[in-house]
């Protein structure tokens, strides 16, 4: 068991444990904060997979952007002063059954398949340069479309969330 494996298990444990807390915690604030650790753990896994740039993007976009957005959502939709911040659960039994089955099937598939795994040759220093290159050549159309999509999302979010004008 070398250092790579130890680090892997460490991050896997962080990820799964905090993800478990996310979906089970009664208090939504706890969920939101343990989601932070989940994202952090996943970023660690990315680093282990040699995807340094993705890891950084993960931290910046998820932790810096999406998580903050979610926290705002929590704050804006709950009266902080009231006790209502706890959220209820429903259909726990079928959910446990279903997800356990799902996880079982997936793990069975993943472990049962004979993957022709082969380590990819990555640039030694950083993947950022190669990623940028591939992004602006092979994927340039998708890249542009995503830009448009983000714009649409921005406008759409602003339109949906803004205060209703008084009908006059």
């Amino acid at each position: 068991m070398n250092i790579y494996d130890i680090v892997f298990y460490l991050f896997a444990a962080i990820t799964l444990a905090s993800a478990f807390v996310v979906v089970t915690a009664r208090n939504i604030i706890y969920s939101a904060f343990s989601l932070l650790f989940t994202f952090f753990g996943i970023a660690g896994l990315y680093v282990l997979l040699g995807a340094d740039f993705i890891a950084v993007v993960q931290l910046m976009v998820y932790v810096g952007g999406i998580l903050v957005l979610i926290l705002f959502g929590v704050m804006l939709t709950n009266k902080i002063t009231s006790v209502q911040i706890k959220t209820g659960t429903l259909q726990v039994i079928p959910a446990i059954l279903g997800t356990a089955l799902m996880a079982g099937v997936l793990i069975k598939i993943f472990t049962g398949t004979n993957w022709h795994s082969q380590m990819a040759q990555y640039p030694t220093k950083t993947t950022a340069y190669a990623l940028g290159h591939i992004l602006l050549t092979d994927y340039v159309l998708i890249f542009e479309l995503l830009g448009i999509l983000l714009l649409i999302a921005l406008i759409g979010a602003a339109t949906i969330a803004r205060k209703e004008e008084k009908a006059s």
Partner: protein
Amino acid sequence: MVQVGLTHFLVISAILFSLGIFGIVTRKNAVMVLMGLELILNSANINFVAFSRYGNFGLNGQVVALFVIVLAAAEAAIALAIVLNIYKTFATVNVDEIDKLKE
């Protein structure tokens, strides 16, 4: 113990995926549902990056992961806007109370 390889990452992603599904199904609060959704997207991302690493496809998997992150950001923005709107309309964000579709 087996050397950490592709399968390990895939198993992690499978468990994460199931936890996400569990979150979506069981929680009442719409924001919580969104968090579950984020977990699912992340598990898919782990798969992409892992296959990119072990599948010898070059960096294509990472690029797709990048795109997924962008989509997740857009999705989160729109979804939270919708949640806010729902909150304004129904004065609640509990998804089980919002069943107007039934009628």
